[in-house]
């Protein structure tokens, strides 16, 4: 007997994105009628196509470079229009508040003086850039590209885990996943009106023009990448192509008289805006890490002189610090006089002795995260941790409490996912991407990441995560 995709699928009490969704029932019906072998075969073909297309990241080990795809799960994740409107408005609100926060922190610091944020949390933070003090950026748009990580709890409530305000990645997979769905599963999409995602590159170019020191349509924009050996290199290629701008490396750029140029076959050519995919630390060996081979000596001078736009602005790392994130409801109220549209997750800053005591007492029920890490590294998930892991976590907390926050363990929603020829529930999150120049635009949907390991709550690609196409219904 032919087994069908949703036959025997059991979300085991978790909130299921497909079964609980009020979205268009046709996707559910089509999946319910599709033989699982058919899904598996087409999903396999799709993954092979991703490999051949070079939509990959490269893992380096002993003289060997191995190209891996981000595993692609063919069963899409669907958001209906009112769910999306809620997320979209909430993301715009957060980005707006974070940009106002950065503008304040790098100018008058009213929020510190008013005691809403503890000054030492900001001024003592490794991601705070004193060089940016007093520097204004056009439209107060510090965070031009923001990726907001959102989960859904057992009651179906969307909750923000964190904002990625430095160089968030993953947007290329959003678009490539959609193209893959269109190629491999045209029948699943038939007659279901979806919000388009193809104008991301255009919106980026508009935002880059908004932050250029000159205007008039002649802006030379470039995408600055660490180069072919960076694991996100494919995305850099993707973005440069979508924007239609040169993909440069630090060695292609030179600063003369506080102006930035790229080396072309016809000599030096002036550059107006840099979308950089290099962290602050490596941007300019004269200003930051002197050992950086990836950056451009003198770039900060040109930036501070107002001769080049940089996206994201230097110093945005302070806005995506996990400890600062805990203050988001207060930050939003302070700058916008509004209640947060998107819920957060109750966060304990362990720098606070009371919070540290609470965290240590409830270690086995909490998630403990280092404040400045990305990529899912250094996280301890209390309910899933072994005795030894909890002991190790406890020791780290006591040794350096200010480096950690703790949150209750959110029971993440699941989505049906093809695992070894069977469809099983796996936890997912959502990362919408917001692009900000003179105004903020949010790409419909975003990256749905899925934790492929059974029971795992960590969706990061570096930790065994995959991704799904994300549908936003009209």
């Amino acid at each position, binding site marked *: 007997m032919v087994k069908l995709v949703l036959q025997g699928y059991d979300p085991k009490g978790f909130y299921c994105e497909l079964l609980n969704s009020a979205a268009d029932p046709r996707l559910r019906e089509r999946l319910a009628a599709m033989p699982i072998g058919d899904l598996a075969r087409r999903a396999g073909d799709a993954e092979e196509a991703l490999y051949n297309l*070079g939509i990959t990241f490269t893992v380096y080990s002993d003289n060997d470079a191995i190209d891996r795809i981000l595993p692609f799960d063919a069963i899409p994740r669907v958001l209906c229009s009112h769910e999306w409107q809620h997320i979209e408005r909430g993301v715009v609100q957060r980005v707006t508040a974070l940009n106002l926060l950065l503008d304040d922190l790098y100018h008058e610091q009213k929020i510190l003086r008013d005691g809403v944020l503890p000054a030492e949390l900001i001024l003592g933070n490794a991601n705070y850039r004193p060089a940016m003090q007093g520097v204004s950026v056009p439209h107060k748009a510090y965070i031009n590209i923001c990726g907001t990580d959102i989960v859904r709890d057992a009651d179906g409530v969307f909750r923000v885990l964190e904002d990625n305000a430095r160089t968030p990645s993953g947007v290329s997979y959003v678009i490539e996943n959609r193209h893959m769905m269109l190629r491999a599963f045209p029948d699943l999409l038939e007659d279901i009106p979806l919000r388009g995602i193809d104008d991301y590159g255009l919106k980026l170019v508009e935002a880059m023009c908004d932050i250029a020191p000159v205007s008039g349509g002649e802006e030379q924009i470039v995408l600055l990448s660490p180069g072919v050996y960076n694991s996100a290199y494919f995305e850099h290629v993707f973005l440069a192509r979508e924007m239609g701008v040169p993909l440069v490396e630090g060695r292609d750029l030179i600063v003369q008289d506080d102006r930035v140029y790229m080396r*072309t*076959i016809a000599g030096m050519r002036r550059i107006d805006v840099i979308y950089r995919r290099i962290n602050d630390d490596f941007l300019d060996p004269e200003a930051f890490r002197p050992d950086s081979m990836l950056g451009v000596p003198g770039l900060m001078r040109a930036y501070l002189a107002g001769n080049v736009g940089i996206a994201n602005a230097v110093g945005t790392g302070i806005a995506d610090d996990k400890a600062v994130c805990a203050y988001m409801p207060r930050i939003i109220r302070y700058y916008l006089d509004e209640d947060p549209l998107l819920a957060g997750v109750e966060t304990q800053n362990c720098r606070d002795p009371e919070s540290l005591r609470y965290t240590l007492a409830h270690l086995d029920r909490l998630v403990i995260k280092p404040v400045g890490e990305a990529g899912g590294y250094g996280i301890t998930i209390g309910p899933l941790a072994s005795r030894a892991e909890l002991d190790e976590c406890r020791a780290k907390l006591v040794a350096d409490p200010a480096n950690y926050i703790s949150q209750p363990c959110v029971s993440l929603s699941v989505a049906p996912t093809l695992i070894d020829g069977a469809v099983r529930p796996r936890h997912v999150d959502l990362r919408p991407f917001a692009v900000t120049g003179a105004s903020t635009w949010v790409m419909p949907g975003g990256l749905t990441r899925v934790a492929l390991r059974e029971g795992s709550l960590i969706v990061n690609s570096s930790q065994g995560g995959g991704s799904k196409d994300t549908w936003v219904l009209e």
Partner: protein
Amino acid sequence: MSSSLLARNAEDVFWLARSIERAENLARILEVNETFARDSRGVRNWLSIVQLNADMESFSAKHATPSADNVIGFYLTDVGNPTSIVAAIANARENARSLRPLLSTEMWVQLNVFHNRLKTIECDDLAPGNLSPLLTEIKEACQTFTGITEGTFYRDQAWYFYRLGQYIERADQTTRLLDTKYHLLAGGRGGAAPAEVGQWHALLRSASGYHAFRRIYSSRLTPALVAEFLLFNPSFPRSLFLCVREVENAFSELKSRYALRQGNGVAEHLDGLRAILGAVSIEEILSGGLHDFLDMLQLRLIAITRGLSEAFFGRRAAPASGQQQSQNWLTNEQLAMPLQRASGDG
């Protein structure tokens, strides 16, 4: 406004074209040697391929004898040999990775799949009877890439650097191919010795020129005619004459279309090369020594490459202190090794 080509990308596209062209030529040479190049005793000379690539030193460091297995392994699958087909395609793919924003998706996918295919070659594929189809497959994959490039690559500055690389490499390969047989030409005005006819056929086949040659010289096959054909024929796509003309065309179009002022040294070398090819007869070349003539041509091609590097790729000029030094500046191995170049800080 994004039409101005990065110096680094110009260099990458130049070497991408050279690597593909090189791999195609090498596959053809190996295939012809496997199939046709037997001497009167039925012995195939594999050493000549090592000589042609100027790899005597690196080959003998790895292998005691130039046996078929050793030479084929060295040039087909040895990733440690920078002049092997797998290394050429790996280099091409590395260049293509840097160039991905400029290449068509179809170019990239074909090269990526080809590169991954080469990684799956096993011992059994090199066995007699399997080798020839494999080499044909490699040759055709290179030709496919060339065809996709012709059909999909945007015609801006990068395209001209692609053509420059393609035809400079092809010209270089033709001089090397001819050079392997120069000793048979020593004073050879008359017809080929019967024992050598097979060798000359093989030479023409290595350049994919056997049937074209037959159409022009249907009744004769002398060593001098073969050399003349490969050097001077204006219509044969791998003749030195035609390759140099293509290089000249690409270069002058590039300069005029984009109003580029640099590269006068390249233009001078090209003028010189054309003057030589227009003024000298095959008889004069043979009496003066073919090997020396080919050597001079190769040095000119190296000088053109160096001129392009200095004028357009942002490479520093070599110290100008005599012929010896400038010859050392770019050895054959370096020419064939874009990766080594990329790891420098120049």
